């Protein structure tokens, strides 16, 4: 069965620190990969997505993610976080030919000013 793992459940960083959030998936075939962010009291917003091509994907707000097929990973990175990045981050996978997204458990990021 398809599954998505996010290893860091809670992350606390100071402003200007670098961020890397891990995401691994179990599906063996070609997948679509997504990172969503949920700011407090708001809806899930798409940060970035990978369908094919360049494995380094750039998203909004300075975020990027790298797809490493051999490691079944799609880690999210940001070189310098801001207080406003405090939110919950969700990795999601969709196998082509299906509608459903399979989500990880989410990572709560708190950035200290």
């Amino acid at each position, binding site marked *: 069965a398809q599954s998505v793992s996010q290893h860091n459940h809670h992350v606390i960083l100071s402003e200007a620190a670098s961020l890397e959030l891990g995401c691994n998936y179990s599906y063996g075939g070609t997948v*679509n990969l*997504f990172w*969503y962010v949920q700011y407090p009291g*708001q*809806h*899930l*917003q*798409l940060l970035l*997505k990978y*369908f*094919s091509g360049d494995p380094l994907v750039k998203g909004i707000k300075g975020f990027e993610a790298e797809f490493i097929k051999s490691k079944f990973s799609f880690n999210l990175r940001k070189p310098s976080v801001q207080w406003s990045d405090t939110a919950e981050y*969700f990795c*999601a996978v969709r196998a*082509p*030919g*299906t*509608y*459903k*997204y*399979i*989500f*990880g*458990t*989410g990572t709560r990021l708190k950035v200290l000013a």
Partner: protein
Amino acid sequence: EPEVTQTPSHQVTQMGQEVILRCVPISNHLYFYWYRQILGQKVEFLVSFYNNEISEKSEIFDDQFSVERPDGSNFTLKIRSTKLEDSAMYFCASSEGGVTNTDTQYFGPGTRLTVL
């Protein structure tokens, strides 16, 4: 930027009661979805809907659940007889293209359902 909207933001109900959660998808989107997130757990897929039919559903989506597009703008999730374990955040999503390779789902803010 167009957004998916959901009402109500919070619904409290008694066990055994019927609830209807409402969603207004993005206007040019044709595919609609419901997901739920039980507190502290993963966001889970419930159902997808296209052309007035369910196109895919999970094992969670049993006979107690139904979906409907009653008019040109709303998309609803009905739970016929709520149970305590239905307490969760319910997210609606919509997309343009369904299972095409580049399709992306856009999510609403969620309805928190509390069953007492």
